[in-house]
């Protein structure tokens, strides 16, 4: 049996938690390696060897060292296609194309406004950084427009890419969790019937509940 894979970074990081959710869905054993970001460990030469942009997460298994949370998730799903949730990243080319479409939509359209809001609402206060009201207002508006489109899509589809929970849905978990909890943006999701249904379903998954527990204990 292979040694547990290594994930570098704190579970509180949205990008790290994306990878953790994926590993849990796929039943892949992992070891979380702490990175002391408060001390700037992620910007030091040792860490930059495994993530040259000085960000978390980084990932290693017995054959490779990679970074970028969505690339790590894809790698885990491809390498362990037969383990855990097999629908997470389907090997059927047409299904995979739909998953990729919504994974790209998450990365290109959902992530920018949601991560800006997560930073302003969840992290800036903790870091004693003054909140940028303009940015919050602008990104609330952008997020609202995106959620309207999601609500329309989820009217005719149980999950974003189709009938199954996939990497495309999973990728939304980290930012959305912060938005609806500490970010006080729950209403944006609960006021949209289909988004509300979808969010309740994906956030109740055992894998995500475990990640939230890990975030609480660090």
């Amino acid at each position, binding site marked *: 049996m292979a040694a547990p894979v290594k994930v570098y970074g704190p579970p509180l990081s949205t990008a790290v938690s994306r990878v953790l959710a994926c590993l849990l869905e796929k039943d892949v054993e992992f070891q979380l390696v702490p990175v002391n970001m408060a001390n700037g460990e992620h910007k030091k030469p040792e860490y930059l060897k495994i993530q*040259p*942009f000085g960000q978390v997460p980084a990932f290693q298994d017995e*054959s*490779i060292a*990679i*970074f*970028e949370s*969505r*690339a790590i998730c*894809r*790698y885990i799903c*491809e390498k362990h296609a037969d383990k855990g949730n097999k629908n997470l990243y389907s090997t059927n*080319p*047409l299904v*995979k*194309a*739909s998953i*990729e*479409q919504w*994974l*790209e*939509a998450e*990365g*290109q*359209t959902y992530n*920018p406004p949601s991560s800006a809001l997560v930073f302003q609402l969840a992290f800036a206060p903790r870091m004693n950084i003054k909140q940028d009201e303009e940015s919050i207002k602008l990104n609330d508006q952008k997020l609202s427009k*995106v959620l309207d*489109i999601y609500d*329309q*899509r989820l009217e005719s589809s149980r999950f974003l890419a189709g009938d199954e929970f996939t990497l495309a849905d999973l990728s939304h978990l980290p930012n959305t969790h912060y938005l609806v909890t500490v970010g006080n943006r729950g209403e944006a999701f609960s006021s949209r019937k289909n988004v509300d249904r979808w969010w309740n379903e994906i956030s109740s998954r055992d894998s995500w509940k475990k990640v939230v527990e890990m975030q609480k204990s660090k």
Partner: protein
Amino acid sequence: MVMKVHGGVASTATMRVFATLYEKNLEFEFVPVDLRAGEHKKEPFLALNPFGQVPAFEDGDLKLFESRAITGYIAHAYADKGTPLVCEGKPMATVGVWMEVEAHQFDTLASKLQWELVYKPMFGMAMDAAVVEENEPKLAKVLDVYEARLSQSKYLGCDCFTLADLHHLPTLTNLMGTPLKKLFDARPKVSAWVADIMARPAWAKVLAMRSQK
């Protein structure tokens, strides 16, 4: 039935898809979308991409949006045609990393700079110097990482030209026509890589579409 690409010849995202199709010598039908008239924000286009953005793509019954999902689909579905733009097995993991780097590290900054330095002048709008001042050093830092990477690898993802490189071409070409060219020229490995990928015949075909229109 021939594949269809709905978009604009000068849309960087659409150009990503054109480049992929030309690299693989695949037949396709280009369906122009009148961006100036806002055609992409109305029906029937919204049925192809509810986010109201180009490109949208059709291959038989399959309909897709998001340029990088489209290029990925084409590269895998037509793996045996033309240039292999993805790899099998372990090298694909690293190609996948650098595809994400383009999407999140490079394109975010490059798009902001492209908007200020290329599009705003085109539309007779005033450039916001503060945005350029803020993002130029960030792009320079990203390119430092690229320089180190290209010292270890012929192309970004591996030793062959892949989507990880191709995805840069539209925005890169735009930036190379601005004073930011100096950032790329100043880094020898990056400069050689830029020259190499921009000289590809498939890319010339994509650029030629703009003069044909």
